């Protein structure tokens, strides 16, 4: 059994993959708590897709060097986030419509750019579905540094983000910089998406943002606990996913997301059964 567990990690690339999967899982889960609480799942999904032209540009310019992709992806994510914010603020267009326009536009631009490369289907699939087994040392460092920064910022602005998420009007009457906080959260999501690109890819990214946090929300009524539980679920999904990937030969990003989905389904069913059992005539608290 022990051997079964350690065998994969005789390969350095598996150790790096494990590091990346765990860090990405934790960062996504903590940022994802706000994504779930504020109903920003569509925004997260859109931002993940919108980084594709950045990745493609970096790829075309560098001829395949990985670390430069990171910065181009970050640029594309930030441009998209601010464009969505600017369009929905300055016009009567609803925010979800603005998200749809920018996300598909950017994604199409990314596909167009990648399609100019000769054998593009292979490279495209790396970006779409991730390639955690190909994580380099530099990638791992960048992931660790940016992931750490994201978590530090979430802790530093904990009470402000909490108030702005729970009661925006209270945030305004307390004269908090509400617009700054909204943009801060958008930037944090953007950086998270870029950091996670290589682990799960563009298409499955939103799962890492919302599935562990949604699972945690079924288990606790406290925000700090929700963040901690969500991080644990995500890290566990990352590790489990890698084993499945190694032994069953399944694509790693898909295996990680499937693990998280399975945990969600189990918790959801357990909650339903538990709720069914306690649904006996109970005196509800009256006024």
């Amino acid at each position, binding site marked *: 059994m022990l051997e079964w567990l350690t065998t994969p990690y005789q390969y350095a690339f598996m150790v790096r993959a494990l590091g990346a999967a765990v860090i990405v899982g934790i960062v996504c889960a903590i940022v994802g708590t706000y994504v779930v609480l504020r109903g920003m799942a569509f925004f997260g999904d859109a931002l993940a897709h919108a980084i594709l032209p950045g990745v493609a540009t970096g790829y075309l310019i560098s001829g395949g060097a990985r670390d430069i992709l990171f910065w181009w992806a970050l640029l594309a994510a930030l441009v998209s986030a601010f464009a969505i914010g600017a369009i929905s603020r300055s016009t009567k267009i609803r925010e979800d419509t603005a998200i749809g326009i920018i996300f598909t536009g950017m994604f199409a631009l990314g596909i167009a750019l990648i399609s100019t490369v000769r054998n593009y289907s292979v490279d495209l699939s790396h970006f779409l579905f991730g390639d955690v087994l190909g994580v380099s040392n530099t990638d791992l460092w960048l992931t660790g540094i940016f992931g750490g920064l994201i978590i530090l910022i979430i802790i530093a602005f904990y009470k402000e983000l*909490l108030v702005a998420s*729970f*009661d925006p009007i*209270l945030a305004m*009457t307390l*004269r908090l910089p509400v617009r700054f906080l909204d943009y801060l959260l958008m930037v944090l999501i953007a950086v998270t998406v870029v950091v996670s690109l290589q682990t799960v890819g563009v298409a499955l990214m939103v799962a890492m943002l919302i599935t562990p946090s949604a699972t945690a929300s079924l288990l606790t009524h406290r925000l700090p606990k929700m963040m901690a539980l969500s991080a644990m679920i995500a890290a566990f999904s990352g590790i489990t996913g890698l084993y499945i990937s190694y032994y069953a030969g399944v694509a790693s990003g898909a295996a990680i997301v499937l693990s998280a989905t399975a945990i969600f389904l189990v918790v959801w069913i357990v909650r339903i059964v538990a709720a069914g059992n306690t649904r006996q005539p109970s005196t509800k*608290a009256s006024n």
Partner: protein
Amino acid sequence: MKSIRQPEKSNYLTGHYSHHEMNSPVLRVSDLGYRYNGDWVLKEIAFELRAGERIAVVGPNGAGKSTLFKLVAGVISPMAGQIDVFGHEPGGHICIAYVPQRSQVDWNFPVSVAEVVMMGRVSKMGLFQWPSNQDWKAVKESLEAVKMQHLAKRQISELSGGQQQRVFLARALAQEAELVLMDEPFTGLDVNTQEDLFAMLESLSERKVTVMIAMHDLKLAAERFDRVMLLNHSLVGIGKPEAVFEPQKLAAAYGDHLRFVQTEEGVVALEDTCCEDGGHQHA
């Protein structure tokens, strides 16, 4: 959105907020106007409130009550006229509390009663600061003032309607608010719970906290408030209930939606328009 004056800079970073002018009323509104999609939602509104006063703001749905409250809270800026809270623009103060309608709160949000009350302290703490002993003490005292200390650790979804209302009052107390704006606090509460809320409001008045309450129930406003405001885009009347709730003014505010019934106690107005929660009567 253009404001007439440059908004006074309140500064969360430095913790500087507008001070209170000694001889200024709590709230002075003059010639206030606000336009939305080209229509004047509010126009030519003028009134004053003194410390410790409690006023009911009534009017039909869409009369501009919520807009007035948001303007007074400094959440949006006037397009005409001026609002002064203790002699300065509302946007520079942190002494104004807005208690939202219960239907507008996300009760499933993962926070406890004490955590919601602590939110009122955020500006007092300042950037990068965590709750001090003094903040915890303020939260405890605020919860005691509304008799909710035994529920401090409850998740907010586990509260009854009256308890939910009290949590937000405690939050206003923790904020050390001197002007409290309450949006439809009585809607959906039974008679006993309404009485509890009035008892709480009484203790706010004793602390010289000024309270504006938006409500639908004309009878409750007439019976329990010394001063009422009748609003329908413009200020139809303000003053003692018997002076404001007279047929001509009510007709001006409600149009065809009110019928008048002669009873032993005088003329009683019945409102036809139904409010969001329905189910409560105006008789």
